[in-house]
């Protein structure tokens, strides 16, 4: 037990130290690497707090995908030359520090004063969970009890992609710095890792109903496969979004809306999920939408095509 507390304290201190380094650092590349490390430690903290769903999501999205997007942005803004010194504005920094510091203090003080409310939403969820056919409370909250929030999250992701496409304008898809697949080991890496990521993604999706996992984690893992295929040139970015791409990008949102509206027409309350099949359908559609959207964002492209096609 005491060893656990020592580990937790070291983790907490490392998080604070790392976040300070990330914010005050002047070398862009090093800051990005430290930010990725920060994401991994946050994932470890969630695991220590007994929240494996969040740990998985943070490791895959917070550390992995955000890191890949940042490194890609770093490459494309062309800092191949010397590191540019970052200009600082101490007055602004002071104001921001004081404001955020007071916010943290207020929230912290409020949290210390809170007593556990007996009839909180969490208890209600755990009581009502058996009726949903799901055994993972997190998936239950995401899809059944707060399904509207999750649906709108898919809408946010779609809007983000549309925004990126607008910024992209008529520009040809960004030249993705890629490693030739004929480079020794890289081809073999793809042959080994791509099937494993597919397997893990499908496993996470199916496991999500009973155990930690679900559409977000599965989508993020699948995106990892997509990023690898873009980097090795197996998937090439294109300037036009084909019909299949458009369909897949809206699939998550569309599945939610169609299942919800269908329940409404069938005489249930609108937006209810009428069975476990609905959960699987929506989760699969969400996973595909999330993976394709993130891969397109990474590739700065409107569509993807296979090598040689």
């Amino acid at each position, binding site marked *: 037990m005491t060893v656990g507390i020592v580990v937790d304290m070291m983790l907490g201190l490392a998080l604070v130290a790392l976040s300070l380094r990330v914010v005050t650092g002047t070398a862009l590349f090093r800051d990005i690497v430290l930010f990725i490390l920060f994401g991994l430690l946050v994932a470890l903290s969630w695991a220590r707090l007994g929240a494996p769903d969040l740990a998985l999501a943070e490791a895959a999205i917070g550390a992995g995908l955000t890191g890949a997007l940042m490194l890609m942005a770093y490459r494309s803004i062309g800092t191949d030359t010397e590191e540019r010194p970052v200009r600082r504005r101490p007055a602004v920094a002071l104001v921001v520090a004081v404001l955020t510091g007071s916010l943290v203090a207020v929230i912290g003080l409020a949290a210390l004063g809170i007593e556990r409310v007996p009839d909180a939403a969490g208890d209600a969820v755990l009581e009502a969970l058996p009726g949903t056919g799901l055994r993972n409370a997190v998936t239950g909250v995401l899809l059944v009890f707060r399904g509207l929030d999750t649906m709108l999250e898919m809408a946010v992701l779609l809007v983000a992609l549309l925004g990126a496409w607008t910024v992209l304008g008529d520009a040809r898809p960004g030249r993705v710095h890629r490693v030739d697949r004929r480079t*020794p080991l890289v081809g073999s890496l793809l042959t080994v890792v791509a099937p494993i990521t597919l397997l893990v993604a499908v496993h996470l999706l199916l496991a999500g109903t009973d155990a930690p996992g679900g559409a977000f984690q599965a989508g993020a893992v699948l995106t990892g496969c997509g990023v690898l295929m873009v980097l090795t040139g197996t998937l090439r970015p294109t300037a036009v979004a084909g019909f299949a791409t458009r369909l897949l990008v809206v699939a998550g949102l569309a599945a939610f809306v169609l299942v919800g509206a269908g329940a409404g027409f069938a005489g249930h309350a609108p937006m209810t999920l009428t069975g476990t099949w609905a959960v699987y359908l929506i989760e699969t559609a969400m996973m595909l939408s999330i993976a394709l959207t993130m891969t397109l964002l990474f590739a700065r492209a409107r569509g993807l095509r296979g090598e040689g096609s």
Partner: protein
Amino acid sequence: MNGAVETLGLALVIAGCVFYAAGTIGLLRFPDVYSRLHALTKADNQGLLLVCLGLAVLAGSARVAFLLIVVWSVGLVAAAVSAHLIARHARHAGEPHASREAER
């Protein structure tokens, strides 16, 4: 749990940590990209193996042991490919070689 088995598991994990520490010291102290990579990949792969073995012994379950072997293999593949790509990039970029510098 049997005391001897627990001791063996802990000893393996600690041995793994020693390898990790050695790899990290190599990363910090070695003079050029190539030898740093050498220290990091060799020592860390061995460290990961020992930690996985130790955890498998402590877990005492065939399923967990198998999953730990999978974790080690994937880590091995990732380390080998990334180290290879970094070394290749360094060579193409004309990164100096410490021992050859010393001979001059």
